């Protein structure tokens, strides 16, 4: 068994290091012993709760899940007593700027927003990621195993986002989630019109925003048609290669997922019309403070909403917040995700989900822990197109697993152990990645053990 597992890991390692394209992932799954965690409360991320259950991790995968003793445990597996512990899939944040806006947050590290043109579809967030950002291990301590890094929202088209595994690495390629699609960050509303309007440039209004998107998509449609024509007909010349149009055409071809910063209900409706006009799919609206006003429409269009539990009021388009936003979207049968867009929030996504769960209950909708955890696991994985590999505790999926000291839907919950592809990257009070930047700073070495 062990030999088989080792062999599988080797094959995986070889497969994922064989570079097909520049900038591809070089992430390699680390060798790790098998683990068996017993007598725990398990929230599967599929909406189920298993009490007094057992999970076995081996070869980077979940190999079994169920009643204690029902599974074949590999010899030499490390046994972990899960009594009193809760287990969830690794948490996934679909909206982060870690690495692009790292700490310390000073001018020389502000690499998250290419505020030079309303259309910067050509930039890739991964090219700004500083893997030594000390905020990565803080998110890991909060149980986050996967995160999407997006460009900022100053532009109509901010650029490509990237999905990363939250592992220590010298390069961003070493963090890239193998095979995960790129995303395109788009932004509605106040930000683009403020940034460019104040410079006397387009867009200066919300109608200017819409005109900006439509013009760009029209161009992308022509570009794609010309490429397709050239591919079919040797006499036709392919259009000049454009980094910007490659991204937009990638969306039209369904290869790149649209993640759309958009707060107001009416603007989301406009964006839905835009997507119909140019025949592309919106994967998720982000922030979406007013999703609850059009929850039926979002369900009908099968668009996710990536939301905060209660953050509000920092600008007018975030003024109509309700604490039941997640609950109402969820109740309408639309895909609800709890996201952070915050280096603080990403450390406690479980608490934000807990707050939304409590808000649902306050309005009389019964939501249990097993369901609430899907907002930060399965649903987030779906929006990143990686739900076939992570986001739920399912046999043969990645062993991205968090052991919590108690019910994670609580302010008192702490992630005690965090596994990514079966390797234990975090053990509270014992072991966590330390970034280069943190070395010899006087955080550690004094006080109670040095955890930030």
């Amino acid at each position, binding site marked *: 068994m062990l030999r088989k597992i080792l062999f599988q890991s080797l094959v995986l390692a070889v497969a994922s290091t064989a570079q097909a394209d520049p900038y591809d992932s070089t992430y390699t799954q680390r060798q790790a012993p098998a683990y068996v965690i017993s007598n725990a409360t398990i929230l599967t991320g599929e909406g189920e709760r298993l009490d007094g259950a057992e999970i076995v991790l081996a070869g980077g995968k979940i190999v079994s899940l169920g009643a204690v003793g029902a599974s074949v445990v590999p010899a030499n597996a490390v046994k972990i007593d899960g009594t009193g512990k809760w287990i969830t899939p690794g948490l996934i944040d679909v909206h982060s700027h870690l690495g692009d806006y790292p700490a310390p947050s000073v001018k020389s590290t502000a690499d998250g927003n290419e505020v030079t043109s309303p259309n910067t579809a050509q930039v890739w967030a991964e090219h700004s990621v500083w893997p030594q950002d000390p905020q990565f291990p803080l998110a890991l301590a909060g149980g986050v195993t996967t995160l999407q890094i997006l460009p900022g929202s100053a532009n109509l088209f901010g650029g490509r986002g990237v999905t990363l595994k939250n592992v220590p690495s010298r390069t961003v390629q070493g963090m890239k989630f193998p095979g995960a699609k790129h995303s395109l960050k788009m932004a509605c509303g106040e930000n683009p019109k403020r940034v460019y309007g104040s410079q006397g440039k387009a867009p200066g209004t919300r109608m200017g925003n819409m005109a900006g998107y439509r013009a760009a998509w029209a161009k992308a449609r022509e570009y794609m048609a010309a490429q397709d024509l050239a591919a079919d007909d040797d006499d036709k010349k392919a259009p000049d290669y454009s980094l910007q149009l490659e991204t937009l055409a990638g969306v039209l071809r369904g290869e790149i997922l649209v993640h759309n910063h958009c707060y107001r209900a009416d603007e989301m409706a406009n964006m839905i019309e835009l997507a119909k006009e140019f025949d592309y799919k919106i994967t998720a609206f982000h922030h979406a403070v007013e999703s609850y006003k059009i929850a039926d429409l979002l369900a009908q269009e099968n668009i996710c909403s990536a939301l905060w539990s209660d*953050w509000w*009021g920092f600008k*007018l388009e975030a003024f109509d917040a309700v604490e039941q936003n997640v609950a109402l979207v969820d109740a309408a049968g639309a895909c609800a995700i709890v996201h952070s867009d915050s*280096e603080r929030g990403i450390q406690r996504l479980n608490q934000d989900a807990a707050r939304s769960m409590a808000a649902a209950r306050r309005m009389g909708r019964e939501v249990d822990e097993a369901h609430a955890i899907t907002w930060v696991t399965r649903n987030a994985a779906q929006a990143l197109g990686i739900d076939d590999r992570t986001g739920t505790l399912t046999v043969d999926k990645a062993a991205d697993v968090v052991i919590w000291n108690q019910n994670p839907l609580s*302010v008192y919950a702490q992630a005690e152990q965090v596994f990514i592809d079966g390797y234990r990257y975090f053990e509270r009070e014992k072991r966590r990645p330390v970034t280069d930047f*943190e070395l010899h700073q006087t955080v550690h070495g*004094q006080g109670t053990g040095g955890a930030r």
Partner: protein
Amino acid sequence: MSFIRSSVARTMGHFLAGCVLSAFSVAANAATIVITNAKVATQTNAGVIDNATVVVNDGEVSYVGSGASAPSVGGDAQTVDAGGHWLTPGLIVSDTQLGAVEIGAEATTRDSGVEEFSMGPAFELRYALNPASVLFGTTRASGITTAVVSPRAANDPLAGTGLAISLRDTLDPSQLILSDRLAMFGGVGPRYADYVGGSRGALVVRLREALTAAKRFSPTRYRADDNGYTSSDMAALKRWLDSGAPLALEVNQASQILQAIALADEFDLELIVTGGVEGWKVAKELAAASVPVVLDPMDNIPVDFDRLGARLDNAALLHKAGVTIAFRSENTHNAGWIRQGGGIAVVNGLPFEAALAAITSAPAEIWGLKNRGSVARGNVADLVLWSGDPLEVTTHAERVMIDGVWMTLDNRQERLLERYRDMGNTVTPFGFR
């Protein structure tokens, strides 16, 4: 009041500054209210009392203790069975912009500090306070009954005087204000150094110069170019120095906290540190100087080079060293996050009682708010009944009392919820719901 040093004059001054406007009558609080079967966090030496009864009379707490020993009240008293739930003092949030900001990014609604005009110590928030702000409703619903409103400097290391306000339901700003010149606010971090040429070295010199000049300030002999401050700034500094009200400085770096302590000592000022991210490194010095710290327990990110030592157990380490701590929130709109901050501080080593104190009795002590922050006979009846553990993110305020009156918990967010909660209703247009 461990942080107040021995100067009687200063203590008296503080007392006066804290009580200027608090003596007004509240109309609708004459009724007697009896709350039975509560788990009361008294925030006094009585600690937590299970199965307790609290009697409220004329806006004040007239009894707190066991139900068995409770005095009998008249038949017209309202009785509320707390069902064994937590009853705490109304929460006190430190260092917000409540009533001075409606929408963060909207300059026309943002009056928490001057932005394109030079005014420092003379800036007074009391003229900017907007009791019609919808934030009062949402903030009350989060269990907060008292707030410290502090100015935000845009171009001066000294930002002006701040307020303590009650979250009473009134449209008269003067009725909200408990203290109109609570403290002089300012800071000595990198942002503040930018106002004086970019170096902390200049900053401390500048502050000393201003304080020295203010002591002997006379409006008839003062020339504005003496140190760059206008006559009204200098008058405000002198008035504040004479009042004995504290100096609240935003300072995070350990070495700068020591500079602030030295400055306060030199001018015999009562210092309050806000921010205090690296406070744990100089906890002993803070305790020795009786300087309290107002902090956010979630501040664990090395945001800049002044805060490289940020860590989650800052609150616990300061408390352990004997420093009085109070909590603030990152956002005024989400002032209620101080409860979550409390829970996080507890997980990281702060005793539960100290975390609760940091949002009730400790800020009352730090900001000199008499008769608030604890459930005791004679105290203002600001009380909150919780659905569960008050520091837990899954609980909420079930009832909120201010001045002995149950507040409505209705607010703009509740109205939005009611309007949109039923997507299946095809009869009533949304605009009529």
